[in-house]
């Protein structure tokens, strides 16, 4: 169980920030995306708070599918740390739900600000100067980037204070909070499926003047039908004996190539 003796210090939060800065996307992969980065960031704290079985359980929870914008996503880590600090592994499900529920919107906001607005403004200024041989715009952008870098550290601390507030106001109601967090998470996953899994059925039936686009017909039945069916299939397979996630990843990898080869799916 949690040991109150080790309250998180400013240094601890900085350390989390630092680890996230470097690790968040380094082992980004198609299966669980930023899961390694998240895991790596919180690991020192897990080791401090938990032992043995409990540690394994918490590490497993912290290495589930995760994807967010790297710039503002540490907000979630801040909240996580605040909650775990107070509640320990009792909050396992709460964290799992919160992570899932918050990653979607923070990705959207972060990608818009840090992926679209800032690069477009700095890029166009810099490029027009650069074309005239003036390096000032390029330097300006680097300076902006340094300021942004500095700002990123704030999100985690913000998340930490919000998380602390949440958990304080909810003392004695962890069950209710956990349920609500999962509810939010599951709702977001429901929306994630049609958003993240972006495949089409390119098959077009043609005979004389008649063309029948398969994707159009599928949309009439249900939008994003193919992603839903694929998720259902994999979900179901994962419930079978002897099916590991490694096997599944190979299965889906080959499935993608095969279905693409026969023009059944296209990206």
């Amino acid at each position: 169980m949690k040991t109150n003796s080790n309250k998180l210090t400013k240094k601890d939060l900085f350390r989390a920030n630092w680890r996230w800065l470097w690790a968040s996307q380094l082992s980004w992969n198609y299966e669980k995306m930023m899961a390694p980065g998240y895991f790596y960031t919180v690991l020192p704290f897990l080791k401090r708070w938990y032992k043995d079985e409990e540690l394994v359980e918490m590490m497993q929870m912290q290495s589930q599918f995760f994807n967010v914008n790297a710039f503002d996503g540490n907000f979630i880590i801040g909240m996580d740390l605040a909650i775990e600090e107070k509640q320990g592994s009792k909050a396992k499900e709460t964290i799992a739900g919160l992570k899932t529920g918050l990653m979607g919107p923070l990705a959207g906001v972060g990608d818009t600000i840090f992926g679209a607005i800032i690069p477009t403004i700095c890029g166009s200024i810099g490029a027009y100067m650069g074309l005239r041989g003036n390096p000032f715009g390029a330097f300006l952008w680097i300076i902006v980037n340094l300021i942004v870098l500095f700002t990123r550290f704030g999100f985690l601390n913000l998340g930490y204070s919000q998380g602390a507030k949440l958990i304080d106001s909810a003392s004695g109601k962890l069950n209710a909070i956990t349920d609500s967090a999962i509810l939010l998470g599951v709702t977001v996953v429901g929306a994630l499926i049609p958003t993240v899994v972006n495949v089409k059925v390119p098959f077009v039936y043609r005979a004389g003047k008649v063309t029948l686009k398969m994707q159009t017909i599928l949309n009439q039945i249900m939008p994003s039908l193919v992603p839903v069916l694929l998720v259902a299939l994999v979900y179901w397979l994962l419930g079978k004996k002897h099916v590991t996630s490694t096997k599944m990843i190979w299965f889906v990898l080959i499935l993608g190539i095969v279905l693409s080869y026969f023009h059944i799916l296209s990206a």
Partner: protein
Amino acid sequence: MTIQWWQILLLTCLAFWAIIDQLTVSIVNNPLAIGMISGIIMGDITTGLAVGATLQLMVLGVSTYGGASMPDFITGAIVGKVYAVISGKGVQFAIGLAVPVGLLMVQLDVLARFANTIFQHRIDTFIKENKPNAAARNALWGTFTWGFSRAIPVFILLVVGNDVVKAILRIIPAWLTDGLKVSGHILPIVGIAILLRYLPTKRFISYLAIGFIAAAYLKMPMLGVALLGAALAYLHYTREVEKLNTKQNSSEKVTESEEYTNEEGEYEN
């Protein structure tokens, strides 16, 4: 003009760093800056800026969302710049070279993201065996898959020359690159399915459906869905807390709660 070995070394390192920079500190995360730095290394900052700026204009506002692979004109900028200087054929020649290199990098980006699933599986295994430090190491080894995905081709291009790109692009069959793209798009399904198995999804399956309907049928963006989810979560929360209170009341102060019922009407916020 020929290229020196230390220049090759520096440019290879730059290619390695450029991608790591994007993934981490994001300081020189754009063709413009990298073009300029290549220019400095090659001793011709003006052409470097010109190549970088031109490529920059081609990717304005293009960004990688949800792990999609984009043409990598940052790596393109390095190669383009170098050949512009070596051949002396100027900026347009450099661009003509940078673009196919950038497109080739899409394939290698996909490959790196694939390769990292290996580390993911090692992490999962080490965690099961309660070896946190071994798992942590694997969370960083992606550095090399990512870094080399850019450094190696740049190195080859600088040493062996341009023709090799075309040759490689000719050898890789289209069905494979297309297939890998499809696989890349559907692989997140595995992560999502694992997550669904991990969460107590069945109890909340209705909310899964509601989130899906909002995104698929009503085209609501993610923040909107999350707002809806938060609203529903808060409703759920209030109801649960209310239940808790009722339980406590019903045992502690049965008589009082009944009086309240009879009194009926006095509103309290």
